[in-house]
């Protein structure tokens, strides 16, 4: 059991997770942002580590990644910053990023360092199931890290079953087949997709991401899943001045209707 498992055991529904890129907009505010998010009422966090070629991301997160790299963010530095994570933050924390930086760091070493810092899970969009299962699952398990898989409207039922079997905290449902930063698709076919997944009665809770950015979209997502993830909209907020002071209001605006 890690913090994610405890969270999902204790609370059903309306969970709010926030994504942001470490090292953006400033190099050393990773934990300040995390702390502000917890205080504001976020339920768990996804801290992104930047990559030069983020193919699954739209312009907002691409920009934050490039800026973070220009600021000097590296995995080494991130783990240095995370040494104080559990002194300041109690909610579950995931790391999210592309596979190549992890390969260079060493997959086993990465998992060890993440666990030492008190990280609970990892999302690596371009680490496929076959490679995870045959080469890396052991490193995740021995460090009590949850690996989070994505599911899209095109993912087949068989594959969703397989993903459910390999998962041990939650499944990340994409609201559409798109890169990050788009708008929420509320078409009938998407509703049918959520209903189809709900009917499968998976053992893992589902959290919806991509296109969530205000109270209306958050509420919509929570009708079909246990919670939702806000990424690009929050990263945009970080572009503004005095962003730390605005975090409380932002979370409040997602939680409650105007």
């Amino acid at each position: 059991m890690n913090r994610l498992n405890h969270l999902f055991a204790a609370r059903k529904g309306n969970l709010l997770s926030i994504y942001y890129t470490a090292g953006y907009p400033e190099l050393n505010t990773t934990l300040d942002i995390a702390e502000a998010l917890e205080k504001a009422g976020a339920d768990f966090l996804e801290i992104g580590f930047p990559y030069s070629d983020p193919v699954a991301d739209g312009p907002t997160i691409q920009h934050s990644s490039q800026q973070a790299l220009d600021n000097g963010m590296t995995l080494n530095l991130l783990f240095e910053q995370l040494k104080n994570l559990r002194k300041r933050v109690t909610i579950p924390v995931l790391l999210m990023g592309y596979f190549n930086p992890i390969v260079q760091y060493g997959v086993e070493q990465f998992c060890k360092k993440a666990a030492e810092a008190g990280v609970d899970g990892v999302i690596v969009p371009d680490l496929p199931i076959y490679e995870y299962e045959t080469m890396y699952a052991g490193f995740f398990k021995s460090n009590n890290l949850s690996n989070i898989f994505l599911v899209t409207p095109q993912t087949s039922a068989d594959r969703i079953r397989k993903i459910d079997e390999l998962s041990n905290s939650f499944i990340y449902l994409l609201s559409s087949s798109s890169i990050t930063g788009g708008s929420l698709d509320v078409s009938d076919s998407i509703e049918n997709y959520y209903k189809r997944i709900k009917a499968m009665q998976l053992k893992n809770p589902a959290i919806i991401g991509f296109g969530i950015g205000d109270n209306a979209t958050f509420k919509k997502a929570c009708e079909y899943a246990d919670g939702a993830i806000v990424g690009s909209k929050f990263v945009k907020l970080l572009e503004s001045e005095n962003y730390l002071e605005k975090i409380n209001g932002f979370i409040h605006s997602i939680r409650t209707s105007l």
Partner: protein
Amino acid sequence: MKYGVNEHGYYGDFGGAYVPEMLYPNIEELRQQYLKIINEPDFKAEFDLLLKDYVGRPSPLYFAKRYSEKYGANIFLKREDLNHTGSHKINNAIGQILLAQRLGKKRIIAETGAGQHGVATATVCALKGIECVVYMGEVDMERQAPNVSRMKMLGAKVVPARSGSKTLKDATNEALRDWIANPVDTHYIIGSVVGPYPYPDMVARFQSIISFEAKKQLFEHTGKELPEYVMACVGGGSNAMGMFYHFLDDESVKLIAVEAAGKGVNSGHSAATTILGREGVLHGSRTILMQTDDGQVVEPYSISAGLDYPGIGPQHAHLYKINRAQYTSVTDDEALQAGLLCCQLEGIIPAIESAHALAQLEKMNFKKDDNVIICLSGRGDKDLDTYIKYFNY
């Protein structure tokens, strides 16, 4: 094939399909269909006919007499420069458009660096009346303006890639993002033996016509089944893989792959991937790529836009690691000099990419009766500006 791909898409340690879940259905559809489709008699017949009547194949295997005298061996040039659109890229574009049609796709996307693959893709889309969108780095669009116009004349929409370094790798990222957003009706024609499985194998098969023909043609010229050497330039590595393909299992044939050293391997301005790169994941496959200690992809440099790629195809990474092929590199200066020499000795203006392979001739120790095949992957018309500026003509 001893050096071919296994059922999981790997060549030894390299390959695979490291794609986000959003691309999985696209890749899976291709994986399940590509061999079935390309082995259908109807596909083969149309592919062969178009290669013959439209591309102008077989391309000649030309015995280069004056080169042979200069280098003391029998030097043959495989004339891919004589293909329609001016390079080997058309072989793959024809294969993939026929595949896309049979998969019922209505829209084609492609990435391009120098513009040769973009032009080849725009050409086959015109031929088939299919919508075509080509992603090209904003920087490359300025450097290769005539090819941008060519693509537009052929009816393609050219979209500038403005992310990252605004060159080939970023154009590839943008094409992948487009494919994520349009998973059902769009086919992505990747231009080299790179990307997630099955692309490296599929592109290699379409380009293997180069060595299939060369093997027969060498026999007609010399009565010998096999050459001593086969040489080609490598960016992503599609002409080299096509040139090596039918010689891979003939262990006596020495395979020489020539990378672009740019301003020198240690100058900080180079694209010599096997020397400067390390193992990692790029554009969906595990391969060798140029990167920082932190795993960020490094922007390569070569005067030749077609060799200016930070990785190599996974099969090349495998052939390099197990020493089946020898990977070497030549600088901008050496390549341009070799290009000019080819003009003056053989009356052929080669693409600067192909001139890298020719430059390697200077560094070889041939025996008198050695038969050597070099892939002349493209013609130099597109590079005239660069040649003219360099030599002050």
